[in-house]
């Protein structure tokens, strides 16, 4: 009994220590700042494109008439709050939309970030709720995820106009390197959310016979509506196509496990680039492919981000490995 008691005491002590270390040790905001710039630009572009048919998608008498949505999806839609439910006149719609674009632009450059990060998340969800689920796809899922965690963490602490202004006023001598617990929480949430996404994406594919017989990749590249670059010449290479299918499933299913060990993490994250670039370039979903790569940056250390960005901006590397 003593052995068993000791085991559970050790287990609980280690779990608490590990939990605290995992969530509540401070982290440099460099990675969060980089993700804010890239995700902010994606949010701005995503919503800018809505401008091309704003009344069609968000007006009460557009593609998605509220009564049609209620008939199709029932009362569950009542939980999908959106400011678009209250705006109908074309002028008011454009004022609201332009204000949203300004907020996304401010978020991207990191000006008034604390406030605009909250507004950016609220707006991202609000736009999605109005047209959900009829006009949405994976891009919107990831946009919402990134906006949420960039709101939770101090995403304007690094690589932002806020940081630059504070530095000019002598209020931020660290140059945006001040580590904080909220950075760690935001990055950890992003990382775990990403693991859940890949887990379910992989499990979903594992239910389909075409991912087992390898024909899934052919069905993807031979889909005319998805296709952006013609890869149907691969019809003559079924082994290559099926290998791509198997690698995709294996990578997605193993991602939640292999992305955590230090040695396998760079390999797993690096694999996200060709896989998502493939989706971006060949399956016509440039935005979705890019936003997935942006999300994967959550697993890149702040030290690497600073080394690369400082080298890019100043022309020399600045080893900052200690920044965590």
């Amino acid at each position, binding site marked *: 009994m003593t052995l068993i008691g000791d085991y559970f005491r050790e287990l609980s002590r280690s779990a608490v220590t590990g*939990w*605290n*270390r995992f*969530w*509540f040790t*401070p982290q440099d905001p460099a990675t969060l700042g980089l993700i804010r710039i890239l995700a902010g630009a994606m949010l701005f572009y995503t919503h800018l*494109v809505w401008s091309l*048919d704003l009344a069609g998608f968000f007006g009460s*008498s557009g*593609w*998605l*008439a509220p009564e*049609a949505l209620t*008939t*199709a999806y029932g009362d569950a839609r009542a*939980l999908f709050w959106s400011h678009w439910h209250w705006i109908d006149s074309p002028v008011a719609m454009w004022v609201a939309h332009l204000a949203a674009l300004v907020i996304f632009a401010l978020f991207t450059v990191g000006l008034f970030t604390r406030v605009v990060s909250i507004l950016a998340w609220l707006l991202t969800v609000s736009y*999605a709720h109005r047209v959900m689920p*009829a*006009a*949405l796809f994976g891009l919107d*899922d990831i946009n919402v995820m990134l906006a949420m965690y960039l709101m939770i963490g101090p995403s304007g602490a690094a690589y932002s106009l806020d940081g630059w202004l504070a530095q000019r006023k002598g209020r931020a001598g*660290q*140059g945006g*390197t*001040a580590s*904080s*617990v*909220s950075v760690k*929480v935001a990055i950890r*949430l992003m990382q775990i959310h990403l693991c859940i*996404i890949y887990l*379910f*994406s992989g499990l*979903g*594919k594992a239910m*389909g016979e075409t*991912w087992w017989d390898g024909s*899934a990749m052919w*069905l*993807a590249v*031979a*889909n*005319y*509506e998805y*296709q952006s670059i013609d890869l*149907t010449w691969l019809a*003559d290479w079924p082994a290559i196509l099926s290998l791509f299918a198997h690698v995709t499933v294996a990578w997605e299913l193993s991602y939640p496990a292999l992305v955590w*060990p*230090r040695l396998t*993490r760079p390999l797993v994250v690096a694999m996200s680039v060709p896989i998502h670039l493939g989706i971006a370039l060949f399956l016509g979903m*440039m935005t979705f492919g890019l936003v997935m790569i942006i999300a994967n940056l959550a*697993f*890149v*250390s*702040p030290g*690497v981000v600073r080394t690369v960005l400082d080298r890019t901006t100043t022309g020399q590397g600045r*080893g*900052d*490995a*200690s920044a965590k």
Partner: protein
Amino acid sequence: MARRSTQRSNPTRDRTAPALAQSNDRAEPPIPLLSVRLRVLLSTAIAYHLMAVFIGAWIGSPPTSPFADQVVRPFRAYIAAADLNHGYRFFAPNPGPSHLFRYQLTFADGSTQDGYFPSRTEHWPRLLYHRYFMLSENLNILRPRSPTAEDQAAIEEEALQPFRAMAQSYAAQLLRAWGAAQIDWQVVRHYQPAPADVLAGRPLTHDDYYEPLERGSLKREEQ
């Protein structure tokens, strides 16, 4: 949240190369910056949120189990409000055929105009094209399925109501946008060809790969 400033390492003295990836933090000592009460509060919120993310993904796409339907209850409002109700089943379980919304507009003077969406030649940039693509794909999701084509014909009109409501909403938008008097529409399924067909020189847009599904019409005065 509490913050702790850390002195940035001197780049001229720090010879350590940055780790390519973030470590597991195994070597880091625990730094309890926050009070126990705050950590318990945060931990509870984190656990609830991550459970909501997991359950949202679990029930986000069919099929779901009775157990999952029970578990989701305390999370349902939060999942919906925070937009976490996504299955993330990209191209799963199988990459299926596409669906198009084809239509013919009839104007007051009797002239007609054909169209369809999504259109790779008309809709640009690609993200806008994809929005229209999702509109037409959504109709397929709403359409009840039967195991055989014969059974499909026997599907009751009531079961098609969600599908028809959305299709008529699209039709009404096209009527308004073009100022037409009537629209006749049809949802069409576009299958992918077999590799052998493509190698034989058949284009992806060959007529044989299109299957007409439901159809309907709407007049301006019916709106």
